[in-house]
């Protein structure tokens, strides 16, 4: 018998089983690009929120860049801030409402370039918030420019001759300035551990232990120019990125 072709999911109800309970079905299919890693990160976060039963306690702050497209991904109170400014917004929120679970969702440009001062100092002050940074090694929404995470020699829109020699290893830095923070790096292609990391990070914050930081290695087929080569996308993600940025707890 010929193998039946899987039905393409197009309607909100098609996504019901594949998505966390806290996801908003009516905003699906999501508005990220084809093959983008963000939805995988958000799913892991959403399942962790479901498991902890905190959907109505989360204040979800989203940054500018691709991360902003997550503003309506969940049925949760959320706010879009300015580029790089989500971390201080959630810090302010948490101090005024310590019962809320303040989550800042940021890209690598927002967290490590324009918002790096906020990230570093929030970690130093051991602010009791959770920061999730999606690292796809490029400025994606603005058109594929060089990020502090772009690997050396990679040709991108603002580095046509190749990116700079050095790049940021943020979890390593966070651990260096904050010995008690929860710090981990996950990857979109291995979902179960990513979900566990998310749950541990949120729990760290909810127990009042202070700063929780998760970096997630993620794919950007559009700007990596691998849209029509999914195997290449995952080769870059799992070999090149994961080699430069070790996936582990710190």
């Amino acid at each position, binding site marked *: 018998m010929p193998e039946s072709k899987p039905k393409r999911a197009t309607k909100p109800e098609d996504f019901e089983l594949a998505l966390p309970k806290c996801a908003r079905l009516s905003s699906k299919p999501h508005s990220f690009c084809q093959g983008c890693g963000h939805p995988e990160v958000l799913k892991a976060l959403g399942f962790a929120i479901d498991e902890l039963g905190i959907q109505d306690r989360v204040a979800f702050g989203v940054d500018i860049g691709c991360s902003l497209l997550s503003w309506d991904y969940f049925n949760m109170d959320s706010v879009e801030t300015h580029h790089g400014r989500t971390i201080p917004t959630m810090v*302010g929120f948490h101090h005024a409402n310590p019962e809320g679970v303040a989550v800042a969702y940021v890209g690598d440009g927002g967290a490590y370039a324009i918002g790096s001062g906020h990230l570093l100092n929030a970690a130093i002050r051991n602010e009791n918030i959770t920061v999730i940074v999606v690292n796809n090694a490029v400025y994606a929404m603005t058109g594929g420019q060089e990020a502090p995470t772009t690997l050396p020699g990679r040709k991108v829109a603002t580095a046509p001759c190749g990116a700079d020699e050095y790049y940021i290893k943020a979890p390593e830095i966070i651990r260096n300035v904050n010995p008690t923070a929860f710090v981990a790096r996950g990857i979109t292609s291995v979902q179960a551990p990513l979900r566990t990391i998310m749950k541990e990070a949120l729990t760290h914050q909810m127990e009042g232990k202070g700063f929780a930081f998760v970096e997630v290695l993620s794919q950007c087929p559009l700007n990596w120019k691998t849209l029509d080569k999914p195997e290449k996308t995952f080769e870059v993600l799992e070999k090149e990125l994961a080699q430069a940025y070790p996936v582990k707890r710190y």
Partner: protein
Amino acid sequence: MSEKKFIMGNEVMGRAARAAGAKALYGYPITPSSEILHFWSGEACGEQGRKEGLVFRQAEDETGAGFMLIGGVLAGARSFTATAGPGHVLMQDAFSMAEAMRIPVVAFITQRGGPSTSTVIYSQSEVNLTCFGGNGNGFRVVYSPSNLQELFDYGIKIFNTAWKYRFPTFLLADGYLAKMMGEVEVYDPAEKGIKMVPTEAYMLEKDRKRPLSEVVPTPEIDIREDGGRQYECLRNCLNLEEETYAVNMEIKEAFDKAAPEIVEHEDYGPQDAKTLVVAHGLVSSAVRAAVDALAEGQDKIRLFRPITLRPFPEEALRQAARGAERIIIAESAVNQLARFVKESLYGHCDTALEEYFRPSMGILPKEIIDLVTKA
């Protein structure tokens, strides 16, 4: 209980915020406003402050402080900041978001010399920045106090204006006022019959009294139900020009509606004076002294003082300008107050406007008297 205290301007503002029931100050030190932070951090770590859950957070920079402030307000806390000069420039990033989403942030500004780092002492050169900073249209409320007592009175009032009308609201003081000491009556607003407008969280509000959709412009809010609970999603990055147009027009409509209730001015001196002097803030105190000094002679003058720079008391100024043979605009800046005056009087007044611009310099009563009598 009401009592007289001999204190510094910055402490007056800190005490005003305390009297207003503010819960949180997010800031970054900068001269000449730093003592507001000193006062508040002392309050927050005192026994009573800890009992009340007062919040003080020193940010990594003014940009961070501005966005922490937004976070505090989103959580429903009566929150404020204090800054000046280059720090005020950095905070415009956050104030711009507050303007777009009608987030009632409160800021005490103590103007210092500008442009750039300049002096840490005094000027009136942050009028443009306070009223029109950011990439919006200036839908903010700006009070310009002229003495220490007004730092306290309006320091309470701005919290009510901010939360009643939901616009970013500023107390535009200056370095001299911030650093000078004098006698001030401090009081509990309830003693004077002033009721504080209740606050409400934008996120995680459990007992919402006013629908957020009445405040946040329509394209920026999406409310959905799930499991018997309402979730509010707020955004400021829009897809379409039409959405941005709608945001701006909704904010404008709300501002235009609120403006007549907010606008304030002071008209001081003999109504038959031929010379009208327009000044704001501390300079208006000097003009007031000149009005008194000249009250008995032939060179009587009258002061017109906008107490709110945004919204500006246009109609009141037009009325005051009628019959004036001379109109002098005095400010410690170049054309920052004067721009409002020209805009208000354009097409309504034939009298030439005389400019007395002294950027970053204090203006004394004698200078005003000389201007009037030696012309």
